[in-house]
Structure formats: structure tokens, C-alpha cells
């Protein structure tokens, strides 16, 4: 295997080479320390009632576990990043399948899992053709093999749930993993993860401040137009400023391109959030699981990322390409 691939996959020595990665990591640690300290001080002063205190503590504790799990693999290397994305995809699919009842269809569930693993392989191999082919191929395998149980009643539902699940957690998150094939993947991924998470928080805060009219009350009663607009402005600003450092001197480094990127992150992020709300409303449940105390399931936390990853991927790829200077088909050999 070529040295350049090994460096990208396992080269944790270069983790903090880019200032954005360094400052983002410092910022995350600082945010966790400061928020825990604030809660500790406020509860010592007796300013928090018991339920708020436990709720805040659980949320911070969850973040103390989640943040290292999200940032850690990116710092360690591209191989770990891709592995983490595949594991995340499988865990999210599990919650989705248990929520929609698709898990009772063992064969279809197995096909989706195999599809997600195949996406992981295509991404690790840096084989764009196979990565893109897996969308239609998995769909046709699911549609074909779903016939074998010989139960036409509910066929459309089973196939639709399987294909939807694969596209969300295989292809959608797979795009996030594919960024790791870029030579400079760390700052891009850090930018995406942080802006998507902050987009949620911006929407929540601006909604509290000047949210009056409801956005779509049937889907998610707490979301307001004010919150959505506030998040759009704040996230776009953040992405434009940080993106200027991430894409320094690249094709993407122009105000128009960066503002476009920010808008895509914010809009797709909010749609992702609403998408999960729609799924939950349709099924009739509140939380997707109980993995993260204070957050609900993993899906509740990563919903915004599902739509952002492919949208941002193809936007950046259109303007400046992704992983152009990196060797392709690392594992399979052959031409790209």
C-alpha cells in the first residue's frame, strides 16, 4: 500500500496540522468544561431545581461521551473515520428498523446491513463508481429478494422502508465517510459536524428569542419560522467565516460559494430534523431509542446530518472535487 494512503488512514501525527481542527478541538473541550462548571456552580448556589439539574447533567454527560466519539476518529485517521461512519450507520439503521417495524423482515434487514457494509468498503477503497452504483444495485436486490417471501400484501411498504433506510444510513452517511478520501479531510469534516450541530442550537435559541409563527406545527410543534430564519443567518455566517479558513485559496474560497455552502448546511440540516420528526409522528413515538440519556436515541442526535452529507458532498465536489490527488481503488486495484 502506498505511503500517502497509510498517512491518510492512520496518520494521527498530523491531526492538528490544520488550525481549524486544532481550534475546534480546543473549543469543544472548553465548551464541555465550561458548561459542566456552570451547572456545578449554579446547582451549588441552589439556582436550579432538581429536574433541570438532572436533565442538564445527563445532557452534558452524553455530550462528554458523544463529542470524543465524533471528533476522535477524525483526529486518528481516515480509516477510523470511515469505520466510525459505518458503525454509526448501522446503529442508526437499527433504531430506524425497530421504530418502523422493518426489523421483523429479517432478510430485508440483512440486505440493508450488507448494503451499508458495502458502502463502507467502496468508501474505504476510494472507488467512486462502485459507491454510486450501490444505490441502484441495493435497491434492485431489495426489490427482487423481497418477492421471495411470497407475501404480496405489504410488499410496497417493505421494499420502500428498506430502500429508504439504505439510502439514509448507507448512502447518506456514506457521503460523510467519503469526505475522508480527500487529502485535507479533517477540516472539512470538522466544519460539517460542528456547523450541523450548532445549526440545531441556533434554531433553538433564535426560536426562543423571536419565534412566533409556527413552521409546521403538525410535524414538530416547537419549531418556528423565526428559529429557522435565525439558524439560516447564523449558520451561514459561521460556515462562511470558518469555510474561508478551511478552503483557503481553493476554488470554494469565494464569498458566493461559501454562502451557498452555509445555506445548504442550514436548510438541509433543518429538513433532516423535520424528516425525523415526520417519521416519529407517523409511527407515533416520541424518542427513537434510549441510547443517549437526555437525547433519546442516536437518530435524534444525527438526524440533521443525514441530508446534509450528500448535499454538501456534491456541492463541494462540483466546484473543486474531492480526493482528486489521492490514489483510487486502494484495495481492489484497477482503474477508477
Amino acid at each position, binding site marked *: 500500500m502506498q505511503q500517502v494512503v497509510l498517512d491518510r488512514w492512520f496518520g494521527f501525527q498530523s491531526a492538528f496540522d490544520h488550525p481549524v481542527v486544532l481550534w475546534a478541538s480546543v473549543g469543544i473541550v472548553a465548551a464541555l468544561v465550561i458548561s459542566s462548571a456552570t451547572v456545578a456552580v449554579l446547582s451549588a448556589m441552589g439556582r436550579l431545581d432538581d429536574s433541570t439539574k438532572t436533565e442538564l447533567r445527563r445532557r452534558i454527560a452524553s455530550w462528554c461521551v458523544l463529542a470524543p466519539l465524533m471528533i476522535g476518529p477524525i483526529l486518528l485517521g481516515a480509516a477510523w473515520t470511515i469505520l466510525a461512519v459505518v458503525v454509526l450507520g448501522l446503529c442508526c439503521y437499527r433504531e430506524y428498523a*425497530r421504530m418502523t417495524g422493518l426489523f421483523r423482515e429479517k432478510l430485508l434487514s440483512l440486505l440493508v*446491513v450488507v448494503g451499508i457494509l458495502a458502502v463502507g468498503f467502496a468508501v474505504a477503497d476510494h472507488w467512486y463508481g462502485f459507491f454510486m452504483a450501490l444505490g441502484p444495485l441495493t435497491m434492485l436486490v431489495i426489490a427482487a429478494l423481497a418477492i421471495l417471501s411470497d407475501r404480496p400484501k405489504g410488499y410496497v411498504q417493505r421494499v420502500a422502508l428498506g430502500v429508504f433506510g439504505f439510502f439514509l444510513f448507507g448512502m447518506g452517511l456514506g457521503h460523510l465517510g467519503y469526505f475522508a478520501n480527500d487529502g485535507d479531510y479533517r477540516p472539512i469534516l470538522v466544519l460539517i459536524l460542528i456547523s450541523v450541530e450548532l445549526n440545531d442550537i441556533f434554531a433553538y435559541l433564535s426560536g426562543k428569542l423571536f419565534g412566533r409563527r409556527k413552521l409546521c406545527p403538525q410535524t414538530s410543534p416547537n419549531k418556528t419560522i423565526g428559529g429557522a430564519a435565525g439558524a439560516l443567518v447564523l449558520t451561514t455566517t459561521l460556515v462562511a467565516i470558518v469555510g474561508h479558513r478551511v478552503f483557503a485559496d481553493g476554488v470554494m474560497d469565494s464569498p458566493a460559494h461559501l454562502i451557498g455552502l452555509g445555506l445548504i448546511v442550514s436548510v438541509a440540516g433543518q429538513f433532516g430534523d423535520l424528516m425525523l420528526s415526520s417519521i416519529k409522528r*407517523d*409511527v407515533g413515538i416520541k424518542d427513537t431509542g*434510549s441510547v443517549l440519556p437526555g437525547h433519546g436515541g442516536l437518530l435524534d442526535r444525527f438526524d440533521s446530518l443525514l441530508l446534509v452529507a450528500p448535499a454538501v458532498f456534491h456541492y463541494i465536489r462540483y466546484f473543486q472535487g474531492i480526493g482528486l490527488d489521492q490514489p483510487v481503488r486502494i484495495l481492489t486495484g484497477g482503474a477508477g
Partner: protein
Amino acid sequence: MQDFDLKPANDLGMTHRQRTMSLARESGLIETGTHFAYWAMMRTYLRVYHRMSIRGRENIPAQPPYVMVANHSSHLDALMMVSVQRWRLRDKVFPLAAGDFFFETPAMAAFATLCINALPLWRNNCGRHVLGELRKRLISEPCAFVLFPEGTRSTDGKIGSFKAGLGMLVAKSSVPVVPCLISGTREALPRDKRCPRPRRVSLTIGQPLTFTDVSNDRSGWEQVANKTQRAVEALTDGSGGAA
């Protein structure tokens, strides 16, 4: 357009421990895989080491729901009862196991859920409520249960009296009860031994009984238990089927 019929997992939102103990537990992909692997291994083991012979396999209903019952004298009994099922249905068959033995320690509970797919029955608390929950699951899912109505392993090899709880599962329903007779397992793995000996074991499966007209109350339950017990005992003469 018709809405999709989305049914979330019945054990959604439970913690790991709650889920392990729950009668509503549903297998995921990994558990289904371990169940199939475990039963394939056990079937081979019983065939090779114990020369398991089976009679009346055609008496097992083709589709769930149904309840398999037998006399009980050894831990091998449940293994035999599940490993003779059609392989497609093996993940839908739940042995009802004593909670105070199979779900007492975390290691044992992991074995009970990952390998034998057991649902816990607590000997001091298996009244109307618990059995009602099982009855609902049996009919609505549908699935199959393996249970030993004597309630415990026999010490002397004789068939003890069947408990009326069986009746609570099936009285006034069309769910068939399949009476089975197990022999040889007491010699192969007695109650007080840990290591099984290479003795022959055999399983005779009788014709299914249904209790559609039996009332779902105390007298009906006892009627179900007695009738099933007689059907199991009738299999001892080697006729292979009795009703």
C-alpha cells in the same frame, strides 16, 4: 391512499435489562443469527451424541400459533423440543423458562436470550396477568411456545400433574396444543448431573388438541391441563398419536 401500517418494536425504549426480562422482547438481526446458529448446533449435537429419534414430526402445525408441551425431566428436553421445529420457524419459537434459574445472573440471561430465545416465567408470579400477556402475544404475533406444564423437572421419571396455567394460554381459542413425550433424557442428563452422558433420547409428537369450546375460566383451564396430560401419557404406549 392507504397509510403504511408501521408497528414499532414492542420493546422499544426499554433498557437492556428491562428488555431481557420482558415478555414482549423481539429479536433483532444479531439475535436471530445466534438463535439459528445455536439450534443448528444443538440439533447436530442431539442427533450425533444422543442419537435422537423423532416420531410424529408431521403433527407439528405448519404455521404458528401453537403450543408444544411435554413431560419434563432434564435440561435436554427444551433443546429437543425446539430443534425439531421447521427451521424457518425456529426464531418464532419461545421456550418458557423458569425466571429464577435462566434469568437470575446476567451471563445466564444472555444465554437465555441470545441462544435459546427463552421468555421468563417466574414460579411465584405466573398468574393471570402474565399468562394473559403471553396469550395475547401467542395469538397476535403469531408465535409458538414450548412449555413444560409440570412446572419443574421430575425427580423420579414419573409424569407429575399438569398445572392449569397452560389452560390460561389456550382455552377458548383455536391455538392447537401439541402433546409430546420425551424419553431417555433422564438417563442422559439427570437433574443432579452437569455433564450429559451419551444415552439415546427419543421424542414422540402426538396429534394437536384444540380447546375452542372450553371456557376460559378456572374449570376450563383445569380441563385443558387434564386433557393434555392424558394425551401425553397416552403416548407412552408407543401408538404415536392420541386425541
